[in-house]
């Protein structure tokens, strides 16, 4: 019985292959977009974790030479003998036939806990590691090393990509660097009364541990990517919901017959669920494959973006990580369940004797429109309430969900209203029929149009977000990297000579004075700045009062970062204690993206009065000819290359990285619009069969098939245009929620929002183009419908 029922239900698909394809592809595309984005996120996160665990970068202070060159092992021995808890590291590149591999030599006995090769947790013989040498690498790197080295290779996928970890001695042999080291890791806990590093190892300088700023910025990037993936999934679910509902609706008659001939309801529901599970499984696997391909194509750009923006190392190739393909399958099942739940409920509660009704008419009923409008009003009201009173990240996502769902549900009502308005003003009988007919088609196309609305809104939202991010970041770079050169002095004597030299040879000299302190109870850095044209021209404030820089220069005000202001509950004009005995009003609040520590900026003079022992060791330099000045500094003062940083080059590189970010966003935009176009195509094709009885009388009354085809095409364009008109404000609202609400709740800082009308015009054109392409085939089919098919509508025996 179960098999016979299954065969009967499944036979529907063999007669409706297009619908079958729409269902599978809709779900596969939805899963693909979600799992693709998740794959990129999972890969990037795994890479950070591996890098942190393997290299320990950012966790510990490091001792390196000024120039970054290797140094003698005897320096390390001298420091150890002096009591310093340091551990040696040797890094270098090994050329293999398959490309370069970075060799990382560690001393397993002195490396701080958590940094040793992860695989050395019991299975590997420590003696073998120390005496014969073992290379730890992830599977991809291990393949590259296979046959290239004589050492044993242990595969450990927790090792960062492109890196092989080994004992320091083995590394020295491999890299042909006997008795040489690259850096020393400084343990956090050190004995008291140690001699200074400068006295024991004068060639080495101490680099402080990095703060968590990069983590927070990358988290922001991932959160936004995840939001985009989720939106894309929502678009896909609208397609699946549409196709599943239609398929169930079309099979209502069959379901009634099956029950009438003796198939129990429970069996029927069970068979339908089994069918859905099969769909979810096939489409889920297909979607994961699609996501994998998408992520593989996009990952190199994402990797370059993350590396360039935040210095985060990400592998350029993708691994099949269980967490993302499992989440892909889960989302495929969840999506199918969500899409089919209502349809299954209807079948379970459908009176056995109720006759089947075409879906279009059911949805078209005024009652449905009223219910949709009511649900939309409730959801949008909740969204407004959250925007006003809600707090927290969960509320932020609640706001997003209510806003998007509410807007999607309101769309049919808005479209009907707009079409009705045009209908009232149309004079000719043909156009009156056309608008009345269009109004009648809205319910049938509403799910596809909702998908287009969400896709376009997501694109507008994400484009606004990324572009705002770019504008803000460029401003931020202009502000922070305004000096063409940044120069570090080795000691105070050199610093004084350098300042004198620079004042004589540069346009403007900006000494960097800073001290770590607590301001309003928040761990912060206090800066003393020499106020000049650079600060006045380049610093943009989130909020300010009066002539900020004149007040700062005169010691009458202080500039604080947004993080400090928000966490301390302070804002412009509030007084704040910045140093012992110095209370100044806040003159301005400045953005300091990604830095978890607070920042306050006061005048150089006031700073020197408060902290007379602190001398500037670093200088920002404005110069009309930075290359010549850089050369002169090397020649006249003997500065090393490492001491002079060309900030213009860094800025140019960062801007280049943003172009890559745009490539990713552009690709995701095209994909979501393609999904929406697919939704429209499928809706039009599935509705095409229902259209014949509606169009046949109009054809019989004298409208040619060609004209009918043209009108069908025009209808798609009109509806897509109206949908796009509604999508733009929705997208801007979406961007506002992401930038001003979610980002603040998640990271404590707000990204300013900029409007880009040119982008939206292009996106609207793309959305309409997608609708035109989707409508082309059904319109062509209609124009070529054989008269015999239209005549059948009037046949008595049907």
């Amino acid at each position, binding site marked *: 019985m179960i098999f*016979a029922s299954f065969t009967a239900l499944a036979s529907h698909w063999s007669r409706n292959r297009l619908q079958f394809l729409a269902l599978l592809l809709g779900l596969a595309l939805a899963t693909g977009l979600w799992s693709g984005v998740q794959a990129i996120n999972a890969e990037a996160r795994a890479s950070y974790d591996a890098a942190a665990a393997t290299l320990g970068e950012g966790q510990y202070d490091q001792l390196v030479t000024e120039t970054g060159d290797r140094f003698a092992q005897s320096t390390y021995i001298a420091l150890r003998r002096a009591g310093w808890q340091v551990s040696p590291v040797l890094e270098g590149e090994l050329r293999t036939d398959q490309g370069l591999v970075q060799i990382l030599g560690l001393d397993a006995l002195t490396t701080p806990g958590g940094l040793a090769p992860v695989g050395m947790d019991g299975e590997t013989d420590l003696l073998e590691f120390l005496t014969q040498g073992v290379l730890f690498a992830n599977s991809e790197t291990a393949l590259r090393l296979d046959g290239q080295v004589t050492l044993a290779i242990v595969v450990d996928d927790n090792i960062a990509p492109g890196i092989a970890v080994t004992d320091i001695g083995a590394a020295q042999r491999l890299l042909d660097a006997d008795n040489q080291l690259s850096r020393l890791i400084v343990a956090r806990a050190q004995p008291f009364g140690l001699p200074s590093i400068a006295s024991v190892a004068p060639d080495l300088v101490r680099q402080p541990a990095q703060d968590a700023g990069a983590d927070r910025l990358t988290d922001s990037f991932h959160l936004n990517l995840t939001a985009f993936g989720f939106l894309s999934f929502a678009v896909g679910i609208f397609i699946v919901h549409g196709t599943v509902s239609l398929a169930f609706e079309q099979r209502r008659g069959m379901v009634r017959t099956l029950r009438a*001939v003796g*198939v129990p309801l429970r069996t029927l529901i069970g068979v339908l669920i089994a069918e859905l599970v099969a769909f979810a499984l096939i489409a889920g696997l297909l979607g994961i494959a699609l996501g994998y391909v998408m992520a593989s194509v996009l990952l190199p750009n994402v990797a370059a973006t993350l590396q360039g923006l935040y210095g985060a190392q990400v592998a350029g190739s993708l691994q099949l990580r269980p967490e993302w393909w499992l989440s892909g399958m889960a989302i495929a099942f969840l999506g199918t369940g969500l899409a089919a739940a209502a349809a299954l409920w209807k079948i379970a509660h459908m009176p056995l004797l109720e006759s089947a009704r075409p879906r279009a008419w059911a949805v078209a009923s005024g009652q449905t429109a009223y219910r949709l409008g009511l649900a939309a009003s409730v959801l949008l009201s909740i969204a407004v309430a959250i925007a006003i009173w809600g707090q927290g990240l969960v509320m932020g996502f609640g706001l997003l969900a209510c806003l998007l769902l509410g807007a999607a549900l309101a769309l049919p009502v808005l479209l009907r209203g707009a079409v009705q308005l045009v209908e009232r003003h149309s004079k000719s009988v043909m156009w009156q029929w056309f608008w009345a007919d269009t109004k009648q088609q809205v319910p049938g196309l509403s799910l596809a149009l909702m998908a287009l609305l969400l896709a376009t809104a997501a694109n507008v939202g994400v484009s606004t977000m990324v572009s705002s991010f770019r504008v803000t970041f460029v401003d931020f770079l202009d502000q922070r990297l305004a000096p063409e050169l940044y120069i570090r002095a080795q000691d105070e004597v050199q610093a004084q000579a350098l300042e004198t030299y620079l004042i004589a040879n540069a346009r403007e000299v900006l000494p960097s004075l800073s001290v770590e302190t607590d301001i309003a109870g928040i761990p912060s850095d206090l800066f003393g700045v020499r106020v000049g044209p650079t600060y006045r021209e380049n610093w943009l404030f989130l909020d300010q009062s009066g002539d900020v820089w004149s007040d700062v220069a005169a010691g009458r005000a202080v500039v604080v970062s947004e993080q400090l202001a928000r966490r301390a509950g302070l804002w412009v004009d509030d007084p704040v204690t910045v140093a012992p005995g110095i209370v100044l009003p806040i003159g301005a609040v400045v953005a300091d993206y990604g830095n978890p520590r607070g920042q306050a900026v006061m005048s150089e003079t006031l700073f020197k009065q408060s902290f007379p022992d602190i001398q500037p060791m670093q200088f920002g330099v404005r110069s009309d000819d930075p290359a010549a000045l850089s050369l002169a500094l090397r020649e006249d003062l003997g500065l090393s290359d490492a001491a002079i940083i060309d900030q213009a080059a860094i800025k140019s590189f960062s801007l280049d990285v943003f172009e890559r970010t745009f490539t990713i966003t552009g690709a995701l935009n095209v994909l979501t619009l393609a999904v929406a176009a697919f939704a429209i195509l499928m809706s039009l094709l599935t509705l095409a069969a229902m259209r014949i009885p509606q169009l046949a009388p109009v054809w019989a009354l004298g409208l040619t098939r060609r004209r009918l085809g043209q009108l069908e095409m025009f209808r798609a364009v009109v509806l897509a245009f109206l949908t796009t008109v509604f999508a733009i404000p929705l997208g801007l609202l979406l961007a506002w929620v992401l930038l001003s609400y979610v980002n603040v709740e998640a990271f404590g800082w707000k990204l300013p929002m900029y409007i880009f009308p040119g982008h939206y015009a292009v996106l609207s054109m793309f959305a309409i183009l997608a609708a035109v392409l989707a409508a082309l085939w059904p319109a062509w089919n209609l124009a070529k419908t054989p008269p015999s098919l239209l005549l059948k509508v009037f046949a008595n025996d049907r």
Partner: protein
Amino acid sequence: MVLSIQNVTKSFPGADEPVPVLRGIDLALASGETLALTGESGSGKSTLLHLVGGLDSVDGGTIKVDGKDLAQMDDAARAAMRRSDVGVVFQQFNLIPSLTVAANISFQARLSGVVDEARIAELTEALGLTPHIAKFPEALSGGQQQRVAIARTMAAKPKLILADEPTGNLDEATASDVLDQMLGLVADTGAALMIVTHSQIVAARMDRQVHLRQGRLA
């Protein structure tokens, strides 16, 4: 008795209060017997047929099919009864549009697990459907579709056949032809037949006729 109906009542919800449709029906049907149920539109004919088929449930009274009380059965048991003991032929044919004629004919027999290929072939031939077995229902005329529905019911060898206006959608000549074939098949198998009809011509060909008026047997 294949069918025993005692004091059955049924109402449907109305605007203000429930509208009684059946007001205490008593009826019995033996194996091999044919019965025509006639009456005005809205007299409760189809409702009684649906109650007997277990497609709906009674408000009061009892209906026993082959000695089993329908009121004591859950949905699954009533479905099992429809698979094996009762066959229903509808005015709207209710074929499965995505299955071929051959698959439609054998469908109920496959559900009840009593597939008799020889019997199916015999029925197909007797009803003149052999040239159409590979076609889908949409390619058949109304008369042919009703023959497929009859073949589907007969192939499952039910003890009781319920037919709701089986010739209502057919022209006179086709209706007569279909009825001849149905009665011939019923006679061959010894099943009982209860047919709901408006047509006096159809009713006259049954062993017995009962008339429903305002929910009561006249």
